[in-house]
């Protein structure tokens, strides 16, 4: 109830804005605080379920404020009428004020599912070894734990399915749910716009690039690139040598 009061007071002061994730910030990130053991079978709490439900929503392209905001579902324990009134106010305001992220669409990497052609019939070999074609270029610097192997994240029979906690799986299009298990704060920033690249519009629907568009999941470190040409010093001229080729010129409309 103190949280609710804080919320209402803050709302009245106009200085507090409710994010669905603010609730989780008061507590913890449930997925991140989960046990990382592979054989952990502890039952997820309601908060964990709510969060997992929430983190699955972005793939549906619509962010529904009602289902996202767990605040409206809060049970009230106090009896006095004024608190009931406050609770009703809170429910109303939370639905109205709950700030969903701007409408967006996660662009998914293009490509056909070639994995199945081998992995559907091959026996998975869980022993770490040097990989052969076509995986010989893979280097694992992301998860430098002893014994880490492909089946830590990929489902052996269908490698385009990722393994989450609680025997859940996520397709490649929802890979951020896997990242979310450790990098929850970054994923939250990504959802709300402080991290990651967005293209398209600032007004109306955006397109978000998924985590793997910038971070190689196996080697997430940024690789150095050639910089574009520096500015000319005063009094001199530089030849314009763009690194990025010019966009395809289309006939301008008369």
């Amino acid at each position: 109830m103190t949280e609710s009061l804080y919320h209402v007071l803050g709302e009245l002061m106009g200085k507090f804005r409710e994010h669905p994730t603010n609730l989780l910030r008061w507590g913890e990130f449930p997925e991140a605080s989960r046990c990382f053991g592979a054989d952990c079978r502890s039952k997820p709490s309601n908060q964990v379920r709510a969060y997992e439900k929430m983190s699955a929503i972005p793939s549906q392209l619509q962010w529904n404020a009602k289902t996202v905001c767990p605040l409206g579902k809060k049970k009230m324990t106090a009896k006095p009428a004024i608190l009931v009134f406050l609770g009703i106010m809170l429910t109303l305001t939370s639905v109205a004020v709950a700030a969903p992220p701007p409408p967006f669409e996660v662009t998914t990497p293009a490509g056909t599912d070639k994995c199945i052609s081998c992995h559907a019939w091959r026996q998975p070999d869980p022993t770490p070894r040097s990989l052969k074609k076509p995986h010989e270029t893979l280097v694992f610097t992301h998860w430098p734990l002893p014994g880490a192997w492909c089946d830590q994240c990929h489902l052996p029979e269908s490698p385009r399915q990722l393994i989450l906690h609680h025997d859940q799986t996520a397709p490649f299009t929802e890979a951020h749910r896997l990242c979310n298990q450790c990098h929850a704060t970054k994923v939250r920033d990504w959802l709300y716009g402080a991290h990651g690249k967005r293209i398209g519009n600032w007004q109306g629907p955006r397109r978000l690039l998924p985590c793997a568009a910038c971070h190689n999941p196996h080697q997430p470190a940024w690789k150095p690139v050639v910089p574009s040409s520096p500015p000319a010093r005063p009094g001199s001229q530089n030849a314009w040598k763009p690194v990025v080729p010019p966009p395809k010129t289309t006939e301008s409309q008369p």
Partner: protein
Amino acid sequence: MNPKRRTLLKGLALTTTGVAASASALETMTSPRLTDNLDRLLQKHFKKMSPQEVRLALQRIERETQRIHDIRITCTTTPPQPNVKFAQALNLAMCKGTRRCVEACVRENNCGRGGHLENIRVLATNQGTTHLSQANPYYNPPQVPEPGQKYIPIGCQQCDNPPCVQACPVQATWKEPDGIVVIDYDWCIGCRYCTIACPYGARHFNWGQPNIPTDDFQPVTDYLANRPRPTGVIEKCTFCLQRTRNGSLPACLEACPTGARIFGNVLDPNSEIRYVLENKSVFRLKEEMGTSPNFWYFTG
């Protein structure tokens, strides 16, 4: 030479000159170049033009570009949207100094190539220092990021209290309601007071005819933003007004390979920029000058 002959010669010369002059004058009077130049000379301040005059000015710019650069462009002017104030934030931890934003900006805004006309300048500083005066904008290593280096891209900060606007003696630059400081390139007299007034070095002077390749020309232009500028005027970043006023993101954002830049409407509580301003520790450059920029930097 006797006086008679002199008079005769004088008369002949005068007549021939007069005939030639009148013919060429007639030709030049009707030449589009002269009429366009006269139109530009007699044009009013952008804010005082009637819609009809604005339309004529836009048509003139399209004609001039066709003549000078041999490119057909469309020049329009989009008014600011109500209840919108633009701001940009830049994550310094993510900037790798690739200068892709500069490249995209030069392309989008039809800046002269190979000069010093880039609207964005990326400064390389030693890690741990904030001395902008010791920063190097001319870094050119084979690969970036270099170890021990940090990069700070600086463009126009779109100040709320812009010193350049105060410095301009003819009010050729002003602040629009959506927060963008714009220039009427036809009203600018090229005195360069604003470049001296700007503490961020965001304004650049067009010393000559801008060198724009024909095959790399942005044909969709705006009067106040990226239309080809004449010689001898100031130019600067306008947050890609021709794109942002129509709902798109600026070119630098779309080009950044790391997504370090965040853009949006600060008056919209659900926008990305508001999330950054409310949840990150942001700062502004040269806050002590009282310019109140709309360009925020943050890390993390």
